[in-house]
């Protein structure tokens, strides 16, 4: 029997029981929809992490203080400050292949100008910082080595902070008070947009790290340095040099654990991606379970259908249908169910991931790959769970089937 005729028979059988067909498909619809939506959330997160890491700059090497247990690397910064100003100077002086290095001292502080004030992220950084982060100035100038050395009260404002404090006015040359200390605004950063956590990266004030430590945090040690290698090829070498230098300086004996961490951008990216990949797989497989449940639903209904239509099967066998004709008929019916469910589910998944991005502000990314896989998977589910009922139908004895009440 040709495929077209079989398809027609299957289509008619499914249309005959519209509600039942819909309810049977529901399992697959929900399963496929959930897989598509979950994977799109995972992919969205991954894309955002990658974008975020790319925003660190190019060929960036992070030097973090504190020892981190073997198992994990935390996306935050080390906790105990073990990096000293002397370490910083030594790396600057002795490591070759560096184009820049800068400490990063973070603190939250009240920033005010005129009547406006704002609780803002303050970053104490060196002169190389904006180059390392590839974060250009929109206006004004970077602060100088002299500013850093003498802990001058100069500041570079992020776009959002500038707008909050000065509106549309040009902030360069104006004065802001950080924790009551007046700082002169020398520069304005170009806009960088949202971070992956949904935080506004432009709500920031850069000051010389010396000024930040002296006037804002009172600290004497660093939690992190950002360094930049001259080229991608130099990154591993620079990483080794820094590690060796710091081990020497911290007098860490052979076989002892470092009390600092040197991570390249590449490594951070790989770790973050693998974390989000794990998340994607996890979310996807939870959703996949509902696909299996949907498949069992199809099997159940197909078994009912075979029993209900035993006489029909008997008639078909009596007029010369072979086992494989009956097998094909019921298999196609099951696959039609699961594929139709899959297609609706794909639509639903795309729709719900759209809704999630709009309503929850999550970044989602529906990949063609996940659609193709969902489609193939629902077909496979139809074949897998439809096979047993179809085989049962195909192996019926014609006389028994005709006599069936």
């Amino acid at each position, binding site marked *: 029997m*040709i495929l077209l*005729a079989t398809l027609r028979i299957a289509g008619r059988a499914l249309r005959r029981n519209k509600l039942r067909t819909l309810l049977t498909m529901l399992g697959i619809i929900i399963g496929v929809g959930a897989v598509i939506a979950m994977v799109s959330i995972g992919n969205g997160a991954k894309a955002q992490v990658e974008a975020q890491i790319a925003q660190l700059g190019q060929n960036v090497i992070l030097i973090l203080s504190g020892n981190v247990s073997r198992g994990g690397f935390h996306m935050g910064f080390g906790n105990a400050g073990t990096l000293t100003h002397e370490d910083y100077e030594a790396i600057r002086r002795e490591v070759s292949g560096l184009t820049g290095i800068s400490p990063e001292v973070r603190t939250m502080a009240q920033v005010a100008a005129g009547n406006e004030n704002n609780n803002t992220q303050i970053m104490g950084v060196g002169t190389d910082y904006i180059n390392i982060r590839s974060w250009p100035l929109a206006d004004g100038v970077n602060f100088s080595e002299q500013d850093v050395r003498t802990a001058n009260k100069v500041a570079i404002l992020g776009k959002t902070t500038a707008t909050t404090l000065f509106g549309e006015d040009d902030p360069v040359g104006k004065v802001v008070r950080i924790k009551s200390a007046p700082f002169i605004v020398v520069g304005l950063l170009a806009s960088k947009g949202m971070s992956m956590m949904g935080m506004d990266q432009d709500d920031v004030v850069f000051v010389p790290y010396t000024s930040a430590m002296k006037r804002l945090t009172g600290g004497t040690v660093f939690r992190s340095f950002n360094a930049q290698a001259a080229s991608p090829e130099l990154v591993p070498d620079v990483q080794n040099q820094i590690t060796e230098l710091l081990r020497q300086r911290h007098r860490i004996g052979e076989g002892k654990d470092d009390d600092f961490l040197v991570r390249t951008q590449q490594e951070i990216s790989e770790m973050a991606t693998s974390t989000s990949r794990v998340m994607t797989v996890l979310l996807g497989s939870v959703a996949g379970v509902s696909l299996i449940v949907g498949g069992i639903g199809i099997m159940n209904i197909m078994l009912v259908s075979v029993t209900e239509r035993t006489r029909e099967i008997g*008639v*078909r066998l009596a*007029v*010369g249908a*072979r*086992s494989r*004709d009956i097998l094909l008929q019921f298999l196609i019916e099951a696959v039609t169910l699961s594929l139709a469910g899959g297609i609706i589910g794909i639509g639903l998944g795309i729709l719900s991931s759209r809704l999630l991005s709009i309503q929850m502000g999550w970044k989602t990314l529906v990949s063609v790959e996940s659609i193709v896989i969902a489609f193939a998977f629902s077909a496979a589910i139809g074949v897998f769970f439809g096979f047993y009922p179809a085989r049962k139908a195909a192996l019926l004895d014609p006389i028994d089937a*005709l006599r069936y009440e």
Partner: protein
Amino acid sequence: MDTQPVIKLENFSKTYVTGEVEVHAVRGVSLAIMPGEFVAIMGASGSGKSTMMNTIGCLDRPTSGRYLLDGVDVGELDRDELAELRNHKIGFVFQGFNLLSRTSALENVELPLLYSRNRVGSRHQRERALKSLELVGLGTRAEHHPNQLSGGQQQRVAIARALVNGPKVLVADEPTGNLDSLTSVEIMGIFQELNRQGMTVVMVTHELDIARYTQRNVVMRDGRIVSDQRVPNRLEAAAELEKIKREQQAVQLAP
């Protein structure tokens, strides 16, 4: 005329085993039916008629003995080969019609063509099915569903379905069992006409007067053939129909 029988049973037996009990439904029957014969199988209930018909119709295989259909030993064939024989050598008509519900008469008649080894195009299929329906006088009811047809009409659809693939033998198990006497005679008229055109017809019936429309009566008892005779005064369905209609007119049953 062909000298080889189209149906040949040689010491055919069929035993059903249900649990511990063995039922000998047919015990060593030999029977030869020549092409163009019109045979009625008769006998009490449980005498093994349906069992024999199922084998003749290739729905089943002998437990022992041989069944040759058109010279082919059916006992040697596998499931698919039996299906193929049912498809193009046998036209089976059942007591309960066995039409697919919610499927038009035409599509019911097309069904065997769907499973035919030498398939024809779908337009050709419709033409052949329609021709077959016209043959049983239902050309105008092609689009009707079984539940829109009378019992006699449904049985005629079933006969059209049995004929559509041009079978060698028409096998009918109590085709008039569910029909009133007038309709039964009409069905006999169709069988007689087909037989006149050369079709071999084997039919089971309980009713003596229905058996008189055939050429040969085989009587079974307890799984054996106890008599096999020519029908002496064969009835002609056309003439009988006239007679019944006249009688009915008398009591105003018919216009």
